[in-house]
């Protein structure tokens, strides 16, 4: 302290390029480094630019906020607590070290003397030193994760190993250089570099000043070569995400949490759907290069969880392989058939690998868990639907039961082939007003195919209608005039049929002068809310949970807590994840139940699909690969008596799943409206 006290902090600095001569060699080496790296980036940028147009630069303020949240604050990355925290340390450590190097550059190459005084001590010495240690710790822990813990979701490549080793070596040699410089120059400010001073003291204990000076010289050049090597190589590795991830997050889809499906101009489109990289938009191609191989998408994919082929991570990585960043076979080990030797934008991608097989694509429930979890805003789901479209509309080759659903939609306007129910059977004896009998109804109750044509759901629909009557809501139904919104057609991949049904429905609702639509089906809700406006259908649409919450809030419906069962809420994907509605149903259930609400481990926007989306509810899954049974097990792991749902598809999928795996345990599945109506009726 006496020594420190004797010094004036304002004079604090160090000699830049101490011990280094012939520094011009560095600039000579920098030229090929930047050329190689620059070419790597340029090559990829050219590929992205060859993609189809996509408008992703509007609303800059929102986009900047996304970058702040997900790049600077790493919010999405931190959702995986373990890897997230250590990535955060590595991220900010590397940023800080890069700033520190820039400070050296400013001082040395531009001759601006900024490396002095308190800035030098507090930032350039202390802060940089601490952050660098954190970054090194981050790399070390991530290496242990990769080599010892070995989570299934990661991709194990030599590239990943080398990147971790190089980062560690670069930072390690950095501290050796700092420590040896402090030791040899007997730096009076050395104490401000805690890691450096430890290296300095330890080195002096085993070696003399002369040895350290020589070691410093050689290590300095070694450090430089490794750094330049990594910079040159980075654009050819997944480290490219340092550039692509922020760009991808900036250009993310702001409109729809699950990813907006593209519209097709059927008059001019060369291809209905996508079967080659050149047909994707530039954003789709950028997505491929933004992937960091973290595997979160696949780890949350319901189809993959139950052991199916579908893996959103590998769909992205295999397409990235075709975009010529890496060798396909080495990434997945599953490349079959012919692969192009070099980037071929017209190469047919469907079936190019097992991961891109038609079978895998048609296992997707379109739940969008992959899109939701991705830390770098990759839109896996729209690409899967793009390729499904090709199979459906250009090839007419897709699962038979989905074909049956599509044929039924074409012929009968609903996907439930063979149903014995009509659109109005559920209302038998209930005096539910039809649209033609009501003068200007306040809301149209859009029952949906799931709510009307499936036995089980008649009870839920009746409960909802009863609640509306109880609250004296002036509502009506379309009855036989109602047809499917087109959601299953769109998700299966028949965009043409979707447009036909949508246009017809919009026309019907306009004819009846409908303004407000109420529905208990989140799929219908999503279609009305996010997709009909693009086809000229602007209606105010509410999900029944939101509407019922409003009725209670405004005092139209009085609800004393009367349900005695313990209730857990299963978030429907198209309500929670796709549309961000997670509070309204919970509010209702808390209101109606005497017991505290139970939460499943996966809930809210991170909920796990019932298995029924994307046309999958029409498909018989293999007995040992049923998504609904997986979700049923998650529900049974709670101590709830009842699983409340807010979707007719979830109701049947969950009920079937629970009945199949519950054993002796009793667990009921009820729509939120059913829970409420039963409570009101005192059942």
């Amino acid at each position: 302290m006496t020594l420190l006290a004797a010094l004036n902090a304002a004079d604090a600095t160090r000699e830049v390029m101490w011990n280094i001569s012939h520094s011009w060699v560095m600039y000579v080496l920098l030229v090929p480094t930047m050329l190689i790296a620059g070419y790597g980036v340029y090559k990829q940028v050219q590929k992205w630019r060859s993609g189809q147009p996509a408008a992703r630069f509007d609303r800059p303020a929102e986009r900047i906020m996304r970058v702040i949240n997900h790049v600077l604050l790493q919010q999405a990355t931190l959702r995986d607590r373990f890897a997230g925290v250590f990535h955060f340390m590595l991220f900010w450590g590397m940023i800080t070290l890069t700033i520190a190097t820039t400070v050296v550059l400013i001082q040395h190459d531009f001759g601006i003397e900024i490396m002095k005084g308190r800035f030098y001590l507090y930032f350039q010495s202390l802060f940089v030193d601490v952050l660098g240690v954190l970054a090194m710790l981050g790399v070390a822990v991530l290496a242990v994760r990769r080599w010892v813990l070995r989570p299934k979701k990661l991709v194990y490549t030599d590239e990943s190993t080398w990147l971790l080793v190089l980062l560690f070596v670069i930072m390690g040699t950095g501290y050796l250089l700092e420590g040896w410089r402090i030791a040899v120059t007997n730096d009076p400010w050395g104490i401000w570099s805690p890691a450096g001073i430890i290296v300095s003291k330890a080195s002096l204990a085993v070696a003399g000043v002369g040895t350290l000076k020589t070691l410093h010289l050689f290590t300095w050049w070694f450090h430089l070569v490794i750094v330049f090597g990594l910079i040159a190589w980075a654009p050819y590795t997944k480290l490219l995400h340092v550039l692509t991830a922020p760009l991808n997050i900036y250009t993310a889809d702001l409109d729809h949490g699950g990813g907006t499906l593209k519209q097709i101009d059927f008059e001019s489109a060369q291809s209905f759907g996508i079967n080659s990289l050149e047909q994707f938009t530039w954003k789709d191609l950028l997505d491929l290069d933004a992937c960091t191989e973290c595997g979160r998408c696949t780890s949350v994919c319901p189809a993959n969880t139950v052991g199916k082929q579908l893996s959103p991570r590998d769909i992205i990585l295999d397409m990235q392989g075709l975009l010529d960043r890496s060798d396909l076979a080495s990434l997945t080990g599953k490349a079959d058939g012919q692969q192009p030797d070099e980037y071929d934008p017209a190469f047919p991608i469907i079936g190019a690998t097992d991961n891109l097989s038609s079978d895998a694509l048609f296992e997707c429930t379109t739940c969008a868990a992959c899109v939701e979890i991705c830390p770098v805003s990759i839109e896996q789901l729209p690409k899967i639907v793009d390729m499904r479209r090709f199979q459906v509309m250009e090839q007419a080759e897709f699962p038979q039961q989905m074909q049956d659903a599509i044929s039924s939609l074409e012929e009968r306007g609903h996907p439930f082939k063979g149903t014995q129910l009509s659109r109005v059977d559920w209302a038998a004896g209930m005096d539910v007003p039809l649209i033609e009998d009501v003068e200007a109804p306040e809301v149209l109750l859009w029952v949906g195919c799931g709510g009307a044509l499936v036995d089980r759901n008649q009870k839920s629909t009746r409960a909802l209608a009863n609640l509306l009557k109880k609250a004296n809501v002036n509502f009506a139904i379309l009855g036989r005039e109602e047809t499917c919104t087109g959601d299953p057609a769109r998700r299966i991949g028949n965009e043409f049929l979707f447009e036909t049904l949508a246009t017809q429905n919009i026309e019907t609702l306009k004819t009846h002068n409908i303004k407000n639509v109420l529905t208990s089906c989140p799929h219908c809700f999503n279609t009305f809310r996010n997709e009909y406006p693009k086809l000229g259908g602007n209606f105010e649409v509410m999900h029944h949970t939101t509407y019922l919450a409003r009725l209670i809030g405004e005092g139209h419906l009085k609800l004393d807590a009367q349900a005695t069962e313990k209730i857990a809420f299963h978030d429907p994907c198209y309500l929670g994840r796709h549309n961000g509605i997670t509070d309204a149903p919970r509010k209702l259930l808390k209101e109606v139940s005497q017991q505290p609400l139970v939460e499943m481990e996966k809930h809210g926007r991170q909920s796990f699909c019932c298995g029924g989306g994307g046309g999958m509810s029409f498909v018989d899954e293999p007995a040992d690969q049923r998504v609904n049974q997986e979700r049923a097990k998650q529900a049974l792991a709670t101590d709830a008596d009842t699983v409340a749902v807010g979707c007719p598809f979830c109701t049947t999928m969950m009920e079937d799943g629970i009945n199949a795996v519950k054993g002796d345990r009793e667990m009921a599945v009820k729509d939120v409206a059913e829970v409420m109506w039963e409570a009101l009726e005192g059942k």
Partner: protein
Amino acid sequence: MKTLVCLKQILDPEIPPRDFTINRDSRQAVQGSANLVTNIFCENALESALQLRERSEGEIAALAFGPASAEDSLRKALALKADEACLVEDDSTAYRNSATTALVLAAAIKKLGEFDIIMVGREAGDWGAGQTGGLLAERLGLPCVTFVDHIEASGDGVTLRRQTELGWEKVEVKLPLVVTISNHEENVPRIPKTRDIMMSARKPVTNWKLSDIDLTDEDLKTTGDALDVIDLFIPEKKTDCEFIEGDSLDDKIDEFAKRLAGIVQSA
């Protein structure tokens, strides 16, 4: 090989029972909320024809007799790449029995030209008479093989597989002939590609009136009178459920057995 497939448009047979209505006076089903669809066995026939063309080349013509709306069935056939389509438009809403249909189809086929195989569905999902194929063969003076579910070209004829009560029969037949097609997992109708659906809207469909095939209302009256529908009604569905009383399970079983025996005896 030149194939002709006859397609019948009918009321959707999968309509929920509650939505199915009839007009007892006119002795006809009422369309109500039911859609018009192509009879499933006719779709099986078209699929069989498409598969035969894939195996041994040739052309497919589609023919329908019905109201103007039956053009939809033909458009779908065109979307599935049938080479030509012809509608004999029926202006009347009168019930057309199998004999009348066969008469009209035969006249149209004669005008359309020579065909090696004429395929019809084994029966239609509305009246389910299952007579048209045989009657058509009779009119054309051709052999007829019924309940066929697989067709293979062989030499100057075809090898047919037909369903029987006991299994399958393999039949070798010389061309030309009429076959009635039954369903099998091999001839599940495919669905058309979207682009082909769009293209089919622009393809021509030959539209003939009865007079174009030299038939008069009088001709149709002759065959029409051959069959008279006296009444048409929806059978009333009745289920009686009775719980058998008794002091013990054994008593209940005894009583149940007695009742069963009674029913068997009376039958």
